């Protein structure tokens, strides 16, 4: 019996100035990024609260990527300082609660890093594919 391959749904939060532009850069260069990546633009990765990430998982995302500027490059100077503290902490918490922490990933992608965007997203999609759907992990 043929089994449909699991296509993970990954919501990727991208900061406007770096990652979103980097994704655009990848597109303009005609580099292929996986369609599993569902982008949501915010002004700064610092905007991403734990509540938003948790709601995203609650809505059924199999993986969440939080992406922003490299340290020192934040358009708002230190927004990503809070991101780098919050997201790893939330990751740990997911792990403590028995949900695979690898479903949440923090990555820095700058506006010029089109190739890095495709590489990071491809790798993450494959990783989440091996983890399976979130619904199986949390199903009652």
């Amino acid at each position: 019996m043929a089994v449909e391959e699991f296509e993970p749904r990954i919501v990727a939060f991208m900061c406007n100035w770096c990652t979103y532009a980097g994704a655009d850069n990848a597109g303009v260069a005609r580099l292929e990024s996986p369609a599993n990546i569902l982008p949501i633009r915010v002004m700064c990765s610092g905007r991403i609260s734990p509540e938003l990430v948790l709601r995203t998982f609650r809505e059924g995302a199999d993986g969440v990527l939080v992406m922003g500027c490299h340290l020192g490059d934040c358009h708002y100077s230190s927004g990503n300082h809070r991101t780098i503290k919050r997201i790893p902490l939330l990751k740990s918490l997911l792990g403590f609660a028995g949900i695979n922490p690898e479903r949440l990933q923090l990555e820095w992608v700058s506006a010029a890093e089109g190739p890095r965007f495709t590489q990071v997203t491809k790798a993450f999609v494959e990783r989440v594919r091996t983890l399976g759907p979130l619904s199986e992990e949390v199903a009652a």
Partner: protein
Amino acid sequence: MMDAGRHPNITLMTYSEVEEVSGYIGQFKVKVRQRPRYVDMDLCTGCGACVEACVFKKGVPNEFDEGLSRRKGVYIPMNGQGVPMKAVIDEDACLFLHRGKCVKKCMDACPTNAIDFDQKERLVDLEVGSIVVATGFDKFDAARLSAYSWGKSPNIIDGLQFERLSSATGPTKGEILTAEGIKPSRVAIIHCVGSRDENANRYCSRVCCMYALKHAHLVRDKTGAEVFEFYMDIRAFGKGYEEFYERVQEEGVYFVRGRGAEIVVLENGKLQIKAEDTTLGIPVAIDVDMAILATAMEPQTDADHVAALFGLSRSADGFFQEAHPKLRPFHTNTDGVFLAGTCQSPKDVPDTVAHANAAAAEALVILDRGEVLISPTTAMVVEERCVGCGDCVLVCPYSAISLLNSKAHLNSALCKGCGTCVATCPSGAIEALHFTDQQIVAEIEGVLAWQ
């Protein structure tokens, strides 16, 4: 400097310090404390008669000559060439002000009766639209690195002191002389004193390689002495710089590639420089008559205080932080406050001129435009929900939020719309316009409809 002094739209407030800054872009209120000069600026002609007449012959170290000469209690700054070219009385040095005992010959000598010992300090309130911080740098104190024996011989000097020796208005009228008053026959120049050093400052001070080359050139030219330059790298990055380096090499300066590690003051008064010559792979010890230390440029010792006054951040190296290292090197995170010159990072004259010109232009644009463009995605406080915890105040990179009556208060002129405060507030009492939680949640629901 003279142009600035003469310009009708520029008011020079000398001997003054900023006490307090409040307000924001377009409407800053600055309180300035102007200390008394004890000289009436309208009457003084800068003739210098008071200086001649001053009885305090012993004087105090002259800061303009980097301590290599002395000045009296009354003086005209910058060895008579200051702007404005008017006398000033140093209340810590003046015998009358300091000890209450003096016949005040200066007052008799002054042809315009400009000296006024009753002058008081005054507090001035200014209303300005923009601010440029150009507070400069401080020299690294070589005494912090005991290996260089700073203070143990008068012939161990730093770069700025050498500049004074070489200057026609300096203590030796431009002749390069040792403390004994004779021309040196051998001079060592040591790079990176206090720079590129884990025990001092990790950064490179940028300007020293070029001025060290200049000093080598001047020593050769004025004295014919042998010059040994102890360097790690030669940073000759600017227009004409590499060509100058080649020229100095051709002038017969010896370049020893190895950090000057130690200076020993010998019995006969000479200085022995110890280093490793890394190109030959051998240790060397060279005896010289004079050692010039190319000391690091550091942030001013009161940088903490100045930063607090103007709401500036400081980079890891202690200099004032620019808004963006590449794209906005003269802006700060406080709108309307700009940085000019070495207070932001070590730089030489051409770079400082470019930096300062840019800061000045930006400062003027604000005044000319008359209005400030702000981001549409600013945050907004929902007062009923706010419990005044203050986390948002800590988080804002632009100090746009403050607590007023235990509630968060947002200055939308300063808010750039990053939304970090929104993500931080535990009560959801701040919203990001155009990026509200509801809007983002709607997007999340929308994209996850994809199968």
